[in-house]
């Protein structure tokens, strides 16, 4: 029983724990993934915001350049002066409608800046890269700038303006150019320092995030960085994005100061704490349940042990009563039993009754605790019944039973548990003695066939009401009415007898009418114990 209880509790505790753990681990993984995604998304938005700032800055430069270039128009002298008047512009150029670089031109005397510009852009003019770019830019950027240019009403705007990045020595250089209606092209090289300083000016000096932002050019050269990265932090960027054209070769990266696993750690910790809490709760409930059940079992065991102990203690004085009563009885001349004092017979009879009662109580408690085992042996059923009748003779006589009949048809030795059978029949006789005495009649009849032993105990008492016939075999139930009120008993005799009869392969049933009640006990011969 205890083992069953322990296994049941273990099952009831472990099963939900396993299920909850499984769900918790899945949730932990999912939460970790979500947190990671959210963090990456947050970083991406941060990077995007900075990229938008840079892009906005480029657009501002573009608008300013366009304004200045369109104001200069095709006036070479104005174009020539722009680098000196505008911090944005490093150099300007003009190509005529025939595609010839009119300004700056080697046919004229060149300033140092003009000469350097030609040197820097040499490959552009010679390799037709500019022309190809011109054509490609015209196609690709058709939708990007025209709307903005058209809005600038004060200046006569060309159709399209485009950026042309190229790499030269210290890094990327940018040219903004546009084409006039006549096909001529006006352009300006952005002052690189101005470009970089304006971009950097728009970017934060420090980061609110615990990490490092890095802006690098297309050659992976550092342009600008802000934020901090502690020693030992990951050297791989958590997220990188490319800026938009014309700086689309530039890359803005974020390096996280906190390892990704640490970011998800809080969520995991929360799940683990929840799991531990639920586990402890389940364990507590299981322990509490086990303790309460064990206590109940303990108390039940104590009650059973107490019953056994009390019964055991009763047996010793009972042994003395019976032993000395029988010794006294044998001290009389047995030729005439009627000379025996009634008191002596009563002592003997009552001690035997007490003995049967204790036996019933012990058997009843044993069946709950350990179960009852049969010990069949070759036994004389007639001797068992005669012994019982002798035990009951005084009490039956005093109850007024004047007609006692024994019809014992089972001969020879039967393979039965004599003690069990004796207990069954004794309870039936006791029942007849208590409730059937008004009929003054008792008959015990036995007959055997094919291993079945039938024992009938009949009295002519007032009978048992039909609606109560089944109840009499329920434990602790004692039918109460005028006839039975005040009759002593424990209410377990017939319950026990039926259980014992069934244990012996048979059953105990009853038939009753207002004139006669018969208990029919069927037991089956058992294989004899070796």
């Amino acid at each position: 029983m205890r083992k069953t209880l322990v296994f049941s509790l273990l099952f009831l505790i472990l099963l939900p724990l396993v299920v909850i753990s499984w769900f918790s681990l899945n949730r932990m993984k999912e939460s970790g993934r979500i947190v990671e995604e959210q963090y990456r998304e947050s970083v991406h938005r941060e990077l995007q915001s900075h990229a938008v700032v840079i892009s906005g800055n480029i657009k501002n430069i573009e608008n300013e350049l366009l304004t200045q270039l369109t104001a200069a128009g095709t006036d070479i002298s104005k174009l020539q002066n722009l680098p000196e008047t505008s911090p944005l512009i490093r150099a300007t150029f003009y190509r005529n409608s025939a595609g010839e670089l009119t300004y700056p031109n080697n046919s004229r005397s060149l300033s140092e800046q003009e000469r350097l510009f030609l040197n820097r852009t040499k490959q552009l003019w010679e390799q037709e890269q500019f022309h190809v770019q011109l054509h490609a830019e015209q196609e690709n950027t058709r939708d990007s700038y025209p709307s903005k240019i058209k809005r600038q009403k004060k200046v006569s705007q060309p159709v399209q303006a485009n950026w042309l990045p190229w790499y030269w020595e210290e890094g990327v250089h940018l040219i903004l150019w546009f084409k006039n209606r006549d096909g001529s092209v006006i352009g300006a090289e952005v002052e690189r320092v101005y470009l970089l300083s304006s971009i950097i000016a728009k970017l934060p000096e420090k980061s609110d995030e615990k990490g490092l932002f890095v802006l690098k050019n297309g050659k992976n050269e550092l342009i600008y960085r802000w934020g901090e990265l502690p020693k030992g932090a990951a050297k791989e960027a958590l997220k990188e994005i490319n800026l938009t054209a014309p700086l689309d070769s530039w890359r803005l990266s974020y390096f996280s100061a906190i390892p990704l696993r640490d970011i998800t750690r809080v969520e995991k910790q929360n799940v683990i704490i929840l799991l531990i809490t639920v586990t402890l709760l389940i364990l507590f409930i299981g322990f509490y349940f086990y303790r309460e059940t064990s206590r109940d079992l303990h108390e039940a065991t104590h009650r059973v042990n107490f019953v056994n102990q009390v019964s055991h203690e009763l047996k010793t004085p009972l042994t003395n009563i019976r032993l000395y009563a029988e010794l006294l009885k044998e001290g009389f001349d047995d030729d005439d039993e009627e000379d025996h004092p009634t008191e002596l017979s009563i002592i003997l009879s009552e001690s035997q009754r007490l003995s049967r009662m204790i036996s019933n109580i012990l058997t009843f408690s044993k069946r709950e605790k350990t179960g009852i085992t049969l010990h069949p042996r070759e036994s004389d059923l007639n001797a068992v019944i005669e012994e019982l009748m002798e035990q009951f003779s005084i009490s039956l006589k005093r109850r007024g039973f004047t007609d006692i009949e024994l019809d014992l048809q089972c001969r020879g030795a039967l393979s039965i548990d004599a003690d069990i059978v004796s207990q069954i029949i004794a309870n039936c006789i006791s029942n007849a003695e208590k409730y059937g005495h008004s009929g003054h009649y008792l008959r015990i009849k036995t007959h055997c066939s094919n291993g079945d032993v039938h024992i009938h105990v009949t009295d002519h008492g007032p009978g048992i009401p039909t609606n109560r016939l089944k109840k009499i075999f329920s434990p602790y139930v004692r039918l109460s009415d005028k006839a039975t009120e005040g009759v002593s008993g424990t209410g377990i005799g017939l319950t026990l007898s039926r259980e014992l009869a069934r244990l012996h392969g048979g059953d105990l049933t009853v038939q009753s009418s207002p004139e006669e009640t018969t208990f029919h006990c069927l037991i089956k011969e058992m294989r004899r114990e070796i």
Partner: protein
Amino acid sequence: MKVLIAEDDINILEGLQRLLEKEGYNTVAAANGAIAVDKYRDENPDFVILDIMMPELNGYDVCKEIRKSDATIPIIFLSAKSEEIDRVIGLELGADDFISKPFGTRELMARVRAVSRRALAQKPQNDSFEESFTMGNLTVRCSELRAERGDLVVDIGPRDVEILRLLKENRGKVVTRNMLFDRCWGEDFFGSTRTVDQHISQLRKKIETNPKEPQIIITVHGSGYRFEG
């Protein structure tokens, strides 16, 4: 036959002694397990009756001690502990029988006689010992402690055997109560003649066809008893 009785309850102990001595057994009493072991060694009984729950040494331990030196002496456990495990333990330790308290005296004596037969069978007998003898149509089997008449077989005690043997030896003569006392109760026994009469009455119930008209043990009023043959 000598029987050792170990029982801590003085009333049960004395009651058992009376019961067995009435049957013709010599008894040795022990009030606890330690005394029981000592008495066993000193008195050399023919069989032993042991209570289980005793002070000093319980019945199981006494049984183990006895079995160390004698594997065959019959032992009966007598106990209020009647759980199956108690019986199993007792029988596993080498006991021959297990009687639960409270017991009927007849049940007890029947088992004691059964054990006595085994004890007698093991005991070396004198050359003059008769295995059985007949008295009319009654056959008395001494070592089996049984008397037979046709299909009827009854258990009798050692004293019963001695009484019948004495009557048979003095066939046709009166056997006085004193002779019966000396032979069957021992010279040290001081009892009333009623003791003999009661015993004869009990014996008649066992062996006579009609105890009220005895054929084997005939009363000689004022003198004693006689077996006619």
